């Protein structure tokens, strides 16, 4: 959680207590860093919801509705992450300083996503840093979503409220809608967010053509327009995707059973100097990596490479 003041924290905690059984409540461990100006109260809760969930809702839907409520209705309180077995660390500052501040060196994980940007459309604030998360999903994004106006209204029809003043928010919610609520695979979701062109659909065989036409017709409000490279992750998979005409760079690489996705190859080589394979995914084709524990090892790609 991100709080502007103690009073906001008190208000939010009252609401949370009414809806959840709080097991642990503590400040997020940080260390002082000369370059980071602390402006918010950073807190985390671990809780259970079983007894409070109404019959017709799943636990995930319940948590989503809590997040939407807090973000929209409780002033000065923002939910940075709301998942299980994962954490989101956001701030204003250079990445190395933020990492130092949040004591990232003390965490261990299977999947890491990171992001750094020069805020353009809004003034930089802690809540506006990437990644954006909802439940177990996180999204980091390079680009600008020119279809934001309609993506937001499309999501409102399904109960999502966009309040964080950054266009990336819609990507997280769209991914939650299609992958969790509707149960679509990452590949299919990619085909909704970065749909194939009509001229390509027209040449497909009948069944495929009907499917893709139906997807575009019905989920047109979910099409992401504008340049983008996004990496979506949850606690057992990661997906990288480019917009349909590849207006932002995205590079992927593998070494042994590691998958790397980044805006630039140089970023990958800092972490892994000698990857086995490096390639640039095609526009609109997702690169998906799934943890061994979830399924048998697979690095699922579409296109010629691999």
């Amino acid at each position, binding site marked *: 959680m991100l709080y502007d003041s103690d009073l906001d924290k008190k208000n939010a905690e009252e609401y949370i207590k009414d809806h959840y059984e709080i097991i642990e409540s503590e400040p997020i461990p940080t260390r002082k860093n000369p370059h980071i100006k602390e402006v918010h109260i950073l807190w985390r809760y671990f809780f259970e919801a079983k007894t409070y969930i109404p019959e017709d809702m799943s636990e995930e839907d319940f948590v989503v509705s809590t997040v939407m409520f807090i973000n929209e209705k409780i002033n000065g309180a923002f939910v940075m992450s709301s998942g299980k077995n994962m954490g989101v660390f956001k701030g204003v500052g250079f990445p190395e300083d933020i990492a130092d501040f949040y004591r990232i060196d003390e965490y261990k994980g299977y999947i890491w996503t990171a992001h750094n940007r020069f805020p*353009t*459309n*809004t003034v930089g604030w802690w809540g506006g840093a990437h990644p954006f998360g909802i439940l177990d999903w996180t999204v980091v994004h390079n*680009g*600008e979503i*020119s*279809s*934001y*106006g*309609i993506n937001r*209204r499309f999501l*409102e*029809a399904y109960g999502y409220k966009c309040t964080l*003043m950054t*266009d990336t928010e819609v990507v997280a919610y769209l991914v939650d809608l299609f992958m969790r609520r*509707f149960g*679509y*695979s990452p590949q*299919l979701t990619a085909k909704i967010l970065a*749909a194939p*062109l*009509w*001229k390509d659909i027209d040449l497909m065989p009948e*069944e495929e053509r*009907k*499917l893709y*036409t*139906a*997807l*575009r*017709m*019905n*989920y*047109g*409000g979910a*099409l*992401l*327009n*504008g*340049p983008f490279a996004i990496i979506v992750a949850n606690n057992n998979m990661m997906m990288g995707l480019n917009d*349909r*005409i590849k*207006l932002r760079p995205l590079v992927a690489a593998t070494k042994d059973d590691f998958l790397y996705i980044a805006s630039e190859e140089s970023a990958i080589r800092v972490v892994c100097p000698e990857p086995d394979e490096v390639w640039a995914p095609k526009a609109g084709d997702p690169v998906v990596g799934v943890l061994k524990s979830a399924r048998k090892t697979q690095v699922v790609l579409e296109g010629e490479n691999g």
Partner: protein
Amino acid sequence: MAKRKVPPEFVVERDDYKCIRCLACVRVCSYGANFYDENANRVYTENTKCVGCHFCEAICPTEAITVRKNDFDIRPLAHWTPEHLIGIMKQAETGGVLLTSMGNDRPYFSYFDRIVLNASQVTNPSIDPLREPMEIRTYIGRKEEKLEIEEDEDGTVKLKTEIAPQLKLEVPVMFTAMSYGSISLNAILSLARAARTVGTFFNTGEGGLPKELREFKDNMIVQVASGRFGVSADYLNAGSAVEIKIGQGAKPGIGGHLPGEKVTEPISETRMIPVGTDALSPAPHHDIYSIEDLRQLIYAIKEATRYEKPVGVKIAAVHNVAPIAAGAVRAGADYIVIDGIRGGTGAAPKITRDHVGIPIEFAVAVVDQRLREEGIRHMASIVVAGGIRNSADVIKAIALGADAVYIGTAALISLGCHLCQTCYLGKCNWGIATQDPKLTKRLNPEIGARRAANLLRAWAHEIKEILGGMGINAIESLRGNREVLRGVGLHEYELKLLGIKPAGEAW
């Protein structure tokens, strides 16, 4: 006194140097306004007969003719315009309802002119429509909230949900309903052929279906209006969609009106009414007196067409357009047509045309918002009509929430119409709003189809240019995206109703 006092509204001037006395203007004017004086060897015009259609001006081979508005100068009065005076003079002479044609010509705010569009710069590149694909294909019909899709282990993906019937438009512009009777067969054929060439649709209007239109089935929407002219099971299945006309933007609350002068033999045959009688469509459908009746009719039509065609409902934009539209969607309409106050007509009382209804900009914004709030926006497409003048209007209408637009006046102008507003006389010199065979010859459907198709193609290009400038390459991302619009010089409540921000305000 009893002498006619209404002054001429137009003056036809001739340049004597250029006039070669070819007498073409004398021959062609259907209102008999032009004359040749043999003794003086001069051509002159009886100005009171001129309606200002500019046909003589267009046909003059040497550009000798200029048709000017006659400035009926009275002492400047803000409240009483010359038009008000002329209206009262005519009513004093005739005692009748003033008839007029085409769309509202009042100088009200045209809200489209107070809305501006976005372009991308720096943070988001604009897209070059000449190099990148720019997609404006649109589907009209009922959509689903969720698609059931089966994904197998081996990667095959299958669509399980049955998709409702759709109309496929290559350009989000269609030709609106203009009945055979209000316009000539040549005019309808021009639009039908253009629709077929470009890949969009035209609408038969309430005039029934002449046999010449049957071949255009794949591009035709048939209309069922209150008069039910020519409606049969065969008629319903003759097109690709069926549209129930509840109201029309030019004259909300009243029905269609075809003056007897325009009911000739072929019209009589198609509409099944006697030659020379006025064809008056009743104001309500006499079997639709509540929303349940509308639902009954929609489903009756769906049964008759075996659920293979989208069924739409056309309503006029009035004060309660939002709940009315929501009701129609819940009643089963696959698409809704909202016709605004600027909509055109072949004949309507002037007082209704000018004062009844609301601008389409508000109507589409509130209907789109209301349907979304009720969670039923996906159940029907919204088609917007009423004074769409250029591709910018199309884009603004789509950004406010429409799926597509209908054009009527713009289509007729492409065929030659000069908005002289005398369609109800049935003497249209351009061969559009008439049934007189001497006049309908003048509209060559080959030329008409060419021009109407050109108009749509030109607009398609312009739409692509502007979309590219906004950094969007598919029209799905424009539809309902109010972020691309900003208002200029609008009140706060107007901005709120339209759902747009004022110019200058960023995200």
